[in-house]
């Protein structure tokens, strides 16, 4: 069978990205223009600034992705784009550009769900990985425990009731003066701290054993800081963030392993920006090894937002004949498993 080459575009948050992916498994290029430096000035992503940067960057990024893959648009079989969930202004830039490119070149258009993309990052990293498996998707905007039945069939088992895991990292990092982005800064600082120094509460939600809540842990950290300030005590920052991270990681691991055991699964996958966290990767691997479950996580470059993962997910849509029309719109709150 002929190779299927997909040009993929991702602009759902603050990275403008494009990639060329072959047969869903091999990324010939993976170009990412990150705006972190700009948003750091504001302590987080500013949607209007992100949208303005996307429209500036998008054509050079697409050109670079084609050049690195040594391809022209003529070699491409389909154009894919993230159409949700995400920031609507950011999504719209990628969606409008991808639609116009596909139209002008006469190629089919594929709309991809951002979270399905994160899960698919593992198909690039691990060529042997096939559904079914359990997937934990954790990022600044998402915390989902998902049963991946097939390449295009997803069942959401658990989700966060309040903050996303990455959001909790960002808020705690800001509170202790580590700044933005919180995930990598806490990960680094925690290496110098004792993860058992402080016991933070782990939320359980009655009747929803797989759902998450991180606002309680975040509030407990803020209360701890306030109390110490009132008593005039100095806080050991490394211990504090190590203990916070430990509480979050413990919750993520225990929920994931509960699903794996209950459904007798032999594979667990993590994905999303927070899956770059070294403590989470280590704890999850240990838990999987203990249960004899195969553990998959993408390399760091495929954890954070990128277009290669979108090109991988798009390949399976291509194979099923799921194509989008020229009226494809951005859907900021798109549900997992939904099709436009």
């Amino acid at each position, binding site marked *: 069978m002929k190779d299927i080459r997909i040009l993929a575009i991702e602009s759902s948050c603050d990275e403008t990205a494009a990639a060329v992916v072959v047969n869903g498994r091999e990324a010939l290029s993976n170009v990412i223009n990150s705006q972190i430096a700009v948003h750091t000035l504001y302590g987080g992503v500013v949607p*209007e600034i992100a949208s*303005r940067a996307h429209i500036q960057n*998008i054509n050079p990024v*697409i050109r670079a992705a084609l050049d690195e893959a040594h391809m022209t648009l003529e070699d491409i079989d389909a154009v894919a784009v993230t159409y949700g969930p995400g920031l609507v*202004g950011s999504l719209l*830039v990628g969606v*409008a*550009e991808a639609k116009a*490119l596909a139209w002008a070149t006469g190629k089919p258009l594929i709309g991809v769900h951002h979270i399905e993309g994160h899960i698919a990052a593992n198909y690039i990293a691990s060529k042997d990985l096939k559904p079914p498996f359990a997937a934990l998707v954790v990022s600044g905007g998402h915390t989902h425990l998902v049963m991946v039945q097939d390449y295009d069939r997803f069942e959401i088992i658990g989700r966060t009731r309040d903050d996303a895991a990455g959001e909790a990292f960002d808020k705690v990092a800001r509170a202790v003066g580590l700044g933005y982005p919180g995930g990598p800064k806490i990960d680094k600082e925690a290496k110098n701290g004792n993860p058992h120094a402080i016991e933070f509460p782990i939320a359980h939600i009655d009747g929803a054993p797989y759902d998450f809540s991180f606002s309680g842990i975040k509030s407990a950290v803020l209360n701890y800081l306030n109390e110490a300030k009132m008593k005039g005590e100095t806080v050991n920052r490394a211990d504090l963030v190590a203990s916070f991270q430990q509480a979050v990681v413990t919750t993520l691991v225990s929920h994931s392993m509960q699903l794996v055991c209950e459904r007798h699964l032999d594979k667990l996958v993590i994905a999303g920006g927070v899956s770059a966290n070294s403590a989470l990767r280590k704890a999850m691997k240990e838990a999987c090894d203990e249960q004899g479950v195969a553990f998959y996580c993408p390399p760091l470059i495929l954890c954070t937002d990128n277009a290669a993962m979108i090109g991988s997910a798009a390949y399976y849509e291509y194979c099923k004949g799921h194509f989008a029309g020229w009226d494809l*719109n951005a859907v900021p709150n798109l549900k997992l498993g939904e099709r436009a």
Partner: protein
Amino acid sequence: MKILAIESATESASCALTQDGKVVAEFTLQNKQTHSQTLLPMIDAMCAMTGTKPDELDAVAVSRGPGSFTGLRIGAATGKGIALPFETKMASVPTLYGMAFAIGPAADRLIVPLIDARRQHVYAAGYSAGKDGALTEELAECVISAQDLAARLQEAGKPVLLTGDGVKVVLPALEAAGIDVRVCPPALSYARAAGVALAAEQMAREGKLISSDEMAPEYLRLSQAERKRREAGNPAGKEA
């Protein structure tokens, strides 16, 4: 020269094809549907009906603002995507300039296109028409209050012809200032792609076409976050 033009800066979503000054086709929608869903289907239908292929275009013209931030980006991204595959040149047409072209030369009147910029302000510019139909900018595009615009037009001392959805914001102040005002009827008074295409032809004659990489919206306003940062005494993000 064959031009595909896109106008999505305001409530109207519009596309047009022109060939050497003739409007071959123009599709426009003015309702609440989002431009993201309507713009490319309109371009697709228009090109199918006229037998136009994207690689035949000499230029892709986009209304570059000011206007709705999101609308500008939908138009710009659509234009950039159509231009990229064939390295087609682009015209980054000031929206107010395109609106002036859409109503044509007005004898002895200063054409003042206006877009409602909210918060009691309008985006405004002023153009006078030469005998050859070319437009000369007399009032540079700006964000301006009704009172300040009235003062500027008084200073210019010419009768004016107003067009665009910003008319309602400034009309009382202009009339109160005793300016000789005429208003385009609503059927002529919206941003449309034919005006963008005709303005692009003028820009092509002046050697002002650019590459699709260079095409970017002109917002005339900072984002709210940048504005607040500046007011707090910090430089805007990109200058820091």
